């Protein structure tokens, strides 16, 4: 059964706004609401978008609702809270949460929605702002296969690699694994660039040659280039990766699981946030290492 063309979208930030745009471009009617009214100003009167007064109103007008917010408490609030999606959604609605939150949050929300006859998928993404703009996101999904099959055509408008991983929460587990690897990878590349630089070696050439060998990775390619260009505009903000690694390590604590490398990486993101770099891109990690190495930032530029 095809999903109708009324799509709710809540969370029009760095990622959510271009994702909503890609859905609208395909001819769908977007029903939107945001907690901050100023986030909605640009959409008032814009063709293809209807601005609503609450998340519940969005749900009442939609066949499916996507949410893309910052953290677990936000997901709880917009879906299950006062005036939330659950209050306006009728039986048969599908809710797809694309935020990165704890797997436990996904399971709690799903359970509460199932009781109201509302289906749920957790579908966190990887690929950053550029992936969202170019519809090149990697989407990792948890939930029932039949629900996934119905939503798949919409996912295809947002990303290019769309995979059902398992039951509810499985998408968030896969995203947690993604955040471990990228969370460790970014400081590793920053360390290497700082090391090369300190040793008087041209870091551009170091990166070029390494891209041909076993150290080649998307992070060395993309994040490495941003670091060398000293382009620290987000992208993906450092405080968000700190938040994601906290989710991972809290889960590891609860499961008695040893994650020494991720734990070390989290401390570096703590350092970024604590030294006022929470709002810049994670590639700003390079600046943290430079400061600790006694490098004058002015001299590098």
């Amino acid at each position: 059964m095809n999903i109708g063309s009324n799509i709710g979208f809540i969370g029009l930030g760095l990622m959510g706004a271009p994702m909503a745009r890609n859905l609208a471009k395909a001819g769908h009617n977007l029903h939107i609401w945001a907690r901050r009214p100023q986030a909605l100003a640009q959409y008032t009167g814009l063709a293809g978008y209807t601005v609503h007064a609450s998340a519940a109103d969005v749900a009442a007008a939609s066949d499916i609702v996507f949410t893309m917010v910052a953290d677990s408490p936000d997901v709880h609030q917009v879906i299950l809270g006062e005036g939330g999606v659950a209050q306006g959604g009728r039986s048969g609605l599908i809710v797809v949460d694309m935020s990165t939150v704890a797997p436990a949050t996904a399971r709690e929300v799903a359970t509460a929605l199932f009781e109201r006859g509302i289906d749920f998928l957790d579908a966190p993404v990887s690929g950053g702002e550029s992936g969202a703009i170019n519809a090149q996101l990697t989407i990792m999904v948890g939930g029932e296969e039949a629900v996934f099959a119905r939503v798949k055509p919409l996912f295809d408008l947002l990303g290019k690699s769309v995979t059902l991983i398992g039951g509810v929460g499985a998408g968030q587990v896969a995203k947690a694994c993604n955040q471990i690897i990228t969370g460790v990878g970014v400081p590793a590349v920053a360390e290497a660039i700082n090391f090369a630089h300190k040793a008087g070696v041209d870091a551009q050439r170091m990166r070029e040659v390494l891209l041909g060998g076993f150290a080649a990775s998307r992070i060395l390619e993309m994040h490495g280039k941003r670091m060398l260009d000293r382009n620290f505009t987000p992208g993906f903000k450092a405080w968000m990766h700190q938040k994601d690694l906290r989710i991972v390590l809290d889960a590891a604590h609860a499961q008695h699981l040893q994650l020494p490398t991720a734990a070390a990486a989290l401390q570096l993101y703590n350092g970024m946030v604590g030294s006022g770099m929470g709002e810049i891109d994670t590639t700003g990690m390079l600046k943290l290492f430079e400061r600790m190495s006694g490098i004058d930032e002015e001299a590098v530029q």
Partner: protein
Amino acid sequence: MKAESMKIGFIGLGVMGNPMVQHLIKGGHEVSVWARREASAADAVANGATFRASPAELARHSDIVFTIITTGDDVEQVVLNGTSGENGLIHGLARGTVHVDMSTIAPTMARKIAGHLAIRGIDFLDAPVSGGGMGAQNGTLAIMAGGKPEVFARIKPLFELMGKTIVHVGPTGAGQITKACNQMVMVAAIQAVAEAAHLAAANKVDFARVMSAMQAGSAGSRVLDFFGDKMARRDFAAGIEARLHHKDYALIMDEAARAGAPLPISAQVWQQLNALMASGWGKEDTSNLLRVLEK
């Protein structure tokens, strides 16, 4: 001159709480107790304490209430939410009374509880302790307190019945921050001693002799004396149950992330404790960090 007898409530009758109650009774005070299971209060009642039916009921009979419970959630329930309807301490404490929480919990939880109590004119101190069951029995605990100076001054004579080193560190939450620092330094030192024992064994060197050589030198410490000795004798029984240190690390690392403070060594110790828990040694001593390395 003997101090004036006060009406005191006490909740948390475990390894720490029971001897602390005894010291308060010996100090001439009238002590009320409450526990989820009345049987847990048998020792305290035998020593002269009175059992009350609920935290609120206990509060109605007390000018000062001490709590020493395992988790922040438990403290929140006993103080603010009640264990069954509106029977929390807050529902029985009168204006001008004091709640002193001696549990090890998150500083943010301590501040939250203080805020709720303040609205009703009830004072609060966070006053976690160090020194273990032995320190509680001997009345030699280290007590690190956060809260208003005048409230601390009022409670100090009672602290002196239970502890030896009593420091007012700063405002509400400062006691819990101090306790976090204490746990970080202590457990990281246990890990360092475990690694030394592991290196010695890997080189077939007797760790007991390594210890006696180190104790008088710059690496000498109370942790080396106590935990090094346990490791050398391969006595891994608690002591302090490792699961409690594991619990503390979640609070510490959460606070570090919130404050934007990198704690690289603590982060590694945290992960070693996860491995210790996974091995099923949570109810044994933290000196099991050595056995994690031997796996």
